[in-house]
């Protein structure tokens, strides 16, 4: 089943050029980065006029007919569209960047600007492989473990973060956005792997990792990021189902907090602390 999830996403994410509708299930969209999602279809109409339509089993249709630019296509396909396609197919996308070591995944989550990508890039300098940037897709269907699908193979970093993390910039992410795609220093992971730890990034000193108590894990996991909302709409999951799903995550995976200053002068020391934490976790056992 695990290999199937990765193969299924590759199949469902195949892109063809064509015409996309402007409404989905009666909901009419406008070109304002709005999306609509149902149990089998997804439609996004971006502010630059690009339309992206997906129907289960038919793949993704890219409609450039009213697009002012095609520069941002990759961003929309790898972000919102990928999350929509995953959700419709029963996979659970979360807002996280992740690295892998010894066949397991350590993910870092937090709101936009929390430093997920920068930390993940910095961990590459400590030999940890990039697993995904900004979105981690989980397969929750295996009762024994939470499996992760590897993400897209480049980081999105601000110029100062590229320098801090020793990454190599390879091109701008999108027009009007001061972020650049960057190659990770630690290499890439391409296989599906189990999730070992999900760590919430916080600002605070001294830099440290803290375990999260069970009820608080549920509070932290029950976020309202657009990926979670998308999943709820696509799957029509009830309160009961969502609670049980989050509880499975909270039971199967170590949930922690990483407090650090976010001061650039302390970046290398704090990243080294995180690398040491991940390595000692893998050497010391697992949940």
């Amino acid at each position, binding site marked *: 089943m695990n290999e199937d999830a990765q193969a299924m996403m590759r199949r469902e994410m195949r892109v063809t050029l064509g015409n996309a509708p402007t409404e989905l299930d009666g909901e009419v969209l406008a070109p304002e980065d709005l999306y609509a999602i149902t149990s089998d279809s997804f439609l996004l109409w971006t502010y630059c006029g690009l339309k992206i339509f997906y129907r289960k089993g038919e793949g993704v249709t890219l409609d450039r007919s009213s697009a002012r630019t095609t520069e941002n296509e990759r961003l929309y396909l790898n972000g919102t569209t990928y999350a929509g396609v995953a959700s419709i197919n029963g996979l659970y996308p979360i807002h996280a960047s992740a690295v892998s070591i010894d066949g397991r995944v350590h993910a870092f989550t937090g709101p936009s600007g929390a430093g997920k990508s920068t930390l993940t890039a910095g961990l590459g300098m400590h030999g940890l492989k990039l697993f995904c940037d900004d979105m981690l897709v989980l397969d929750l269907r295996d009762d024994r473990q939470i499996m992760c699908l590897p993400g897209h193979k480049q980081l999105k970093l601000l110029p100062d973060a590229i320098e801090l993390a020793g990454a190599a910039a390879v091109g701008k992410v999108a027009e009007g956005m001061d972020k650049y795609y960057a190659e990770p220093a630690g290499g890439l992971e391409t296989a599906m792997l189990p999730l070992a730890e999900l760590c919430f990034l916080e600002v605070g000193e001294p830099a440290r990792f803290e375990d999260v108590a*069970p*009820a608080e894990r549920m509070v932290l996991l029950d976020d309202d990021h657009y990926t979670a909302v998308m999943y709820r709409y696509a799957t029509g999951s009830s*309160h009961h189902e969502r609670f049980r799903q989050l*509880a499975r995550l*909270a*039971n199967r995976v170590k949930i922690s907090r990483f407090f650090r200053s976010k001061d650039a002068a302390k970046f290398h020391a704090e990243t080294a602390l995180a690398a040491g934490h991940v390595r000692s976790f893998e050497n010391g056992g697992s949940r």
Partner: protein
Amino acid sequence: MSGAVLKCDGNFIEQLIDDEIVLLDLDSADFFSLSGTARDVWSLVDGARDRDAIIAALAEEYDCSADQIDGDVEQFLEQMVAGGFLQYG
């Protein structure tokens, strides 16, 4: 209060996470955590035991007298009834 202590099943969802029982209040969407003695009392609520039977079972489990724990258990049950998680049959 007399009668069996009953869980108000339609009002919440419960899940064991590690050694805590986490309740989701379906009305408020708030989470509640039961650990230690609270978890043990909650685990004794089986729809058949009344207040006294719960206290007796807990006293046996903790190897103490019913009088020693009576007040604390009563207070906990009252809180859970007020919160809409338990009721008396």
